[in-house]
């Protein structure tokens, strides 16, 4: 199953795209696994995903800890801690 991955704020700027379609590698279970798999892509990905403490994530528009299993979620998002208000 292909998933949509969305990127926001400096994560989007660092990797240069706001959205992509990805089939998850078989060894990826959680958001943290996926983020770590992106490091091997190098370039902006390596920078954006090198420090997981600076990243937050969402599955199907609900914010969840990066240790959460992706499961059947169709929309995945990575972004920095939020700064609204």
């Amino acid at each position, binding site marked *: 199953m292909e998933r949509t991955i*969305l990127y*926001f*704020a*400096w994560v989007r700027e660092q990797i240069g795209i706001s959205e992509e379609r990805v089939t998850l590698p078989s060894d990826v279970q959680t958001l943290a696994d996926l983020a770590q798999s992106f490091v091997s892509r190098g370039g902006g990905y390596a920078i954006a995903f090198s420090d997981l403490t600076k990243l937050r994530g*969402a599955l199907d*528009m*609900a*914010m969840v800890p990066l240790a959460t299993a992706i499961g059947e979620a169709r929309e995945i*998002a990575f*972004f*920095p*801690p*939020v*700064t*609204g*208000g």
Partner: protein
Amino acid sequence: MSRVRVRTEPFDEGTELAALRATGVGGVASFTGIVRGDGGLVALRLDHYPGMTERALEHLATTAVARWNLSAVTLIHRVGLLAPGDPIVFVGTAAAHRAAALESCAFLIDRLKTDAPFWKHERFADGRSGWVEARLSDEDAAMRWTP
């Protein structure tokens, strides 16, 4: 009655307060956030996650209505380009008594800061620019509402 809006246009607190007052309750409380011009800030841009933003704000509004038995709540957050002095966020609550109105208003602005997917990008008069970093104090403020 809950009203949630994410929009680029300005809002008028007076109009929003009058609408809350028209619900005929005992008390109305509100918070209006204004863009500060600290450090020579000339422009603030608000990015967000369309769809999730509305969902997160609706969830907060529903939670506040249930927890404080509110008659009405209004949440407005602007996105796009803003300048110092511009209103950026409005939280308004209406309830039978002051404690419910005041506490729920504080809950909503505290939790909005940690739960809703907005990101601020600053530009300064001297040419510097960058993303605003999240503050630990905001996480602490949001945590105090955890039952």
